[in-house]
Each structure stands twice: as C-alpha cells, then as structure tokens.
C-alpha cells in the first residue's frame, strides 16, 4: 500500500483478513517473511518498540472494544493519556476529534447509553485522536445497519482525504462497490487480486 491510499481488504470468512491486520499492528508475528509498515520490519521489531508503533496506527474493530466504565470522552482521551500528552492537550485533541465525528453531545455518556453507530464512531475517534499514519479497520460495519455502514465508510473517506492511509477489512461487497477503491482479495491466506 502506498502512503495516503484507501484500500479495502476482502475475502470469505477464514481467508486471513483479521490475521493480516493483526500482523500490521504487531499483535501477531509471521512465521516467515517480512511485515513492512512505514519502512519498518515488524517481524524483527523489539517488543519494547511495539507501543510506539501502535501510536502511529489507529485500529477499529467490529465489536468496538470500548472501556465500559469510562465515558465517551474518557475512552477517547485515554489514548492521548497513554502517549503522555499534557492534560490540556489531551482535552483539546479529544474535544476536536469528537466534534469532527459529531459526538460532542455524547461526551458524558457511557458506551452502553449510546447506539451501535455512535459506539463505532467513538472507537474511530479513539483510533484517530493520536493522528495516526495508518488506520486499520476490521469489519467496522459488521454490527451496523446498511445506512450506518455507509456513514462510517464515508467517514473513513474523509479521514483518508486528510492524509491518513486507510485499510478496511470487510466482506460487505455492496459497500465495496459503492466506494470504488482498490480492493485486495484474500483466499486461504493468499492474495488473489488487487496486489498490483
């Protein structure tokens, strides 16, 4: 993938989409070969460097993975706290990204008090708040209805337009057709199409 690209990753269940994404944010390591992200080989990366890699990568999951005991604001601000930003900057960035994702009316709500689409937007906000170079999304619309799915992917397009490289794993063919972007197709762990 080139810097600034927006690419879909597709394939049937078990094709290896999630595994590929996990390799890209160093949640797993390959048994052989290289995984190059921003010219860095993750296969040989030291464990102590992994947190710093992840600060450059935003990850969004189908099940959102939000902290239930924290509010919308706290969930997003948490990512800025982890990287050690000063408290004032943490608040500024968090407000900004939540406003961008139209969640500024939900700041004090807990994840269970908001809809699935809003929860996914919170997860995206958290992935974006540290201004990542790369955004990885694993079936981000899997739990959403078609209208919300479209809204989420439109949001990814906007994020991509601001310079972030985006890789979205999905098996939603309708969504892929509507977006008209490069598509990588995996089958049994091998790239079938779109690698050119």
């Amino acid at each position: 993938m080139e810097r600034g690209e927006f690419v879909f990753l597709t394939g049937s269940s078990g094709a290896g989409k999630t595994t590929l994404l996990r390799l890209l944010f160093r949640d797993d390591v390959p048994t052989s070969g290289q995984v190059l992200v921003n010219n860095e080989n993750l296969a040989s990366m030291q464990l102590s460097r992994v947190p710093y890699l992840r600060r450059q990568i935003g990850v969004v999951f189908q099940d959102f993975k939000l902290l239930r005991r924290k509010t919308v604001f706290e969930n997003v601000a948490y990512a800025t706290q982890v990287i050690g930003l000063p408290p004032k900057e943490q608040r500024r960035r968090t407000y900004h990204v939540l406003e961008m994702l139209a969640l500024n009316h939900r700041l004090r709500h807990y994840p269970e008090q908001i809809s699935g689409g809003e929860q996914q937007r919170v997860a995206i906000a958290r992935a974006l708040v540290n201004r990542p170079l790369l955004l990885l999304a694993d079936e981000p619309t899997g739990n959403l209805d078609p209208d919300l799915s479209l809204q989420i992917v439109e949001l990814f397009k906007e994020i991509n337009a601001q310079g972030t490289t985006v890789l979205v794993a999905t098996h939603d063919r309708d969504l892929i057709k509507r977006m008209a972007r490069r598509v990588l197709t995996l089958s049994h762990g091998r790239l079938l199409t779109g690698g050119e």
Partner: protein
Amino acid sequence: MAPVQALRHCLVEAKDGLVRHPALTVLAALAIAVSLYVFGGFLLVAFNLGVLSTQLAGEMEVQIYMKAGASEQEIAALRGSLIGDEAVAHARFVTAEESRRRFETRFPGLKDLPGEVGGEIFPPAFEVVLRPSYQDADAAERLARVWRRAAGVEEVRFDRAWFERLAALLSLLRSGGYGVGALLLAAVMVTTGAVVRLTVLARREEIDIMKLVGATAAFIRAPFLFGAAAQGLAGGLVALAGLRLTWRLVIRSTPFHDNPIMSMVAGRFLPPATSTALVAAGLVLATAAAALSLRRAGAAPPGS
C-alpha cells in the same frame, strides 16, 4: 509522561480498579490477611519460644566453688580473669554467708541441717553465666577445665544434661522454625499470587485495549501494582489486628492461666518491629505476586 502525571494516573487507575470490583478487592485483601494471620501466629509462637530460650539460657550457670581458705588475692585474681573472659556474660561472687542464707530461705524446713552436718558446707563461689555462643556442653566443659586450674578453686560444676537439652531445643527451634516459616511464607505468596492474578484476569479486556492504543508495559502494570500494594497493605493490617485481638482473647482465657505451656508460647505479643514487618510483608508480597501474575496473565509487553 511527567512523573507527577504518571503518579496521578497510577493512583487514579489503581483506585478505579479496586472500587470497580469491590467483592474481588475485599476477597483479595481477606485472602492475604488470612495467610498473613497464619504466618503471624507462627511468628508469635516462634517469638515467645525465642524469649523462653533466652530466659533458660540466663538460668544456665557454671558454678566455680572456691576452697574454704581461698585468699582475697586468689578471689580477686579469678574475678579479674572472669571479667576479661569473652565467654563470660556475667559473673557474680557469692560469699559463704550468702550461700547459707539462700539455703535457709529456699529450704526453711532444713535450716538446722548445716549445723547437724558440721564443717563448712557452703563454700564461697562464682556463679557464671556464659554468652549465648558458648552455651553448649562442650564449650562449658572446656572453660571449666581452664577454671579448675586457677589458684584457690576447689571445684567447677555445671549441669551438662541441662546444657545439652537447651542446645537441642534451640536447634529444634531454629531448624523447625525456618522450615515452617519458609513453608508458610510460600503459602502466603501462592495465595496472594492467585488472588491478585484473579483481579488481573478480571481486567484482561481492559489490558488488551491499553495495549492496542500503545500503552507501554510500565503504564499498564503500574496501576495494578499500586492496587495490589494497597490490597497487601490492607491485608497486612487486618492480619495484625486479628492477631492482636486473638492474642488478647487467649491471654484472658481460663486455659491460658491454667496451662503453663500457653504462657510459654503466647505470653507476649509480637514486638513493634516484627508487627511492622508483617504488615510490610503483605505489601511486598502482594506487589511481587502482582508483578508475576501480570506477566502470566497477559499484561506482558504488547505484541508478546
């Protein structure tokens, strides 16, 4: 991250973690308290037996009987020699008259006996208490051999069997105490480790999210370690309070007053330094157990 900011984060997250799972927090602190209570009970008995052995050692004397006609110079020379001897903790000279008075006080029914027997049956003597490192039968025998050769000395006596029994008791206390103590300490570590691991597992999902957003291992672990330290401290304090309460109930009980063995094993409470160490042990063990559990339960560096 600035140190103050990092400390604040650790304290806030640790408090959140403890408050969010109150049952688990209380269970962990209680489990630590129970194991430390048992260990503290052992320490209490060991401490009292230690006091007892010291008292017994104090009663273990070597008597150096002087000849009836021993001169003042001979007595003074031996006194000087005993004072300068590194084996001697304490030496007291008892005159013939004082020996006689003692006999009459201890055995009032026999106070006419010395007159009937006749002669000088209460010779002047030195009562010598040895330092702890010399309180064994062989060392006492070696010293007695030397003192027997001193001018004016009639006889040197000590109770060899008593020395040997005390040495055996002290050896048993030391080896048995270390063995039981090590076993109990291991039990405390295992229990503490298990409960702290349970709290870590309860927050596994949270740990995964922290790793996902780029938290370092230290950032993830520190709040758990602070939380575990607080649980260990609470457990230690509860154990100490429970131990003190139990001890007070025991010393007021009828069996305590009726049975002399009870006063030997539980006559005194733990000294302040040992009490503090027991509480500190809760804090240290819980923190160490948490550090080990965090490694095993998946809070190892991200990507591992």
